[in-house]
C-alpha cells in the first residue's frame, strides 16, 4: 500500500499510548493496529477526524505517500 499512516510518531509526540487512542476513538486496539501496520484498505473520514482531534494534528501529519517500488 503506497499510503502509510505515521500514527506512532504522533503518539510519541503527544505521549499517548495506542490503547488510550483506541479507547478515545471507540475502535478496537486490533483495528488501530491494522491502521498502524498498513493492512487497512481505507480509513473513514470520521475516524481520520477523530485521530486529528485527539492527537491535535493535521491529516498530512499522519498520512504519507510512499510510491511502491
Amino acid at each position, binding site marked *: 500500500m503506497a499510503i502509510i499512516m505515521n500514527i506512532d510518531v504522533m503518539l510519541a509526540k503527544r505521549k499517548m499510548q495506542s490503547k488510550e487512542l483506541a479507547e478515545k476513538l471507540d475502535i478496537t486496539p486490533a*483495528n488501530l493496529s491494522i491502521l498502524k501496520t498498513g493492512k487497512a484498505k481505507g*480509513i473513514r473520514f470520521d475516524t481520520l477526524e477523530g485521530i486529528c482531534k485527539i492527537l491535535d494534528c493535521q491529516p498530512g501529519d499522519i498520512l504519507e505517500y510512499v510510491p511502491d517500488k
Partner: protein
Amino acid sequence: MPNHFFAKSLYYFTRLLAALYLLTWAHATTAMVFKTAALHLTENGERFEIFLPFSQSAFLLGDYNWYYIVFDFLAILLLYGLFFLLLGNVFYAFMQPKLFTAKGYAHLRNFYLFNLLLPVAALIVTAIFSTMEMTVVVIVVLHLVIGIFAYFLAAIFKQGLNLQTEQDLII
C-alpha cells in the same frame, strides 16, 4: 426479522430430524451388533424387525442379510442423519446477524461436498453389493442437484465474505 424466523424454524426442524435419524441408526446398530431384545427375526430368519425401545412395536423392517443391513439400511439412516445435520448448519449460518462469515461459508462447503460426493459413492457401493433401483438413482440425482445449487450459493458466499473482509478493513 422474517428471514431469521424462517432460518431459526428450519434450523430446529432439521436438528430434530437429524437427531431422530441418528438415534434410530444408533438403536438399529446396537440391536444388530449385540442382538438385543429389540431385534426380532421373522420368516425363518430371512427378514428382521426392530422394535421401538422398551416396546414390542416394530418400526423398522428389512431383509436379514449383511449387505442389505449395512448398505441399504444402516448406511441410509446414518447418511440422512448427517444430511440433516449439515443442512441444519446451513440454516444456522442464515440465522446469524452477519451473513458472510468464514464459518457460514464452511457450512455451505461441507453441505455441497456431502451432496456431490456421498450419494454417488453410496450408489456405486449399492450397485456392487446389492440391486440398484430407479428410485435410488432418482434420489441420488436430486442430491446432486441440491449439491450443485449449494455449490453456487457457496460461491456467492465466498465473494460476499471477501467483500465483507475488505469492508471490515476500512477502519
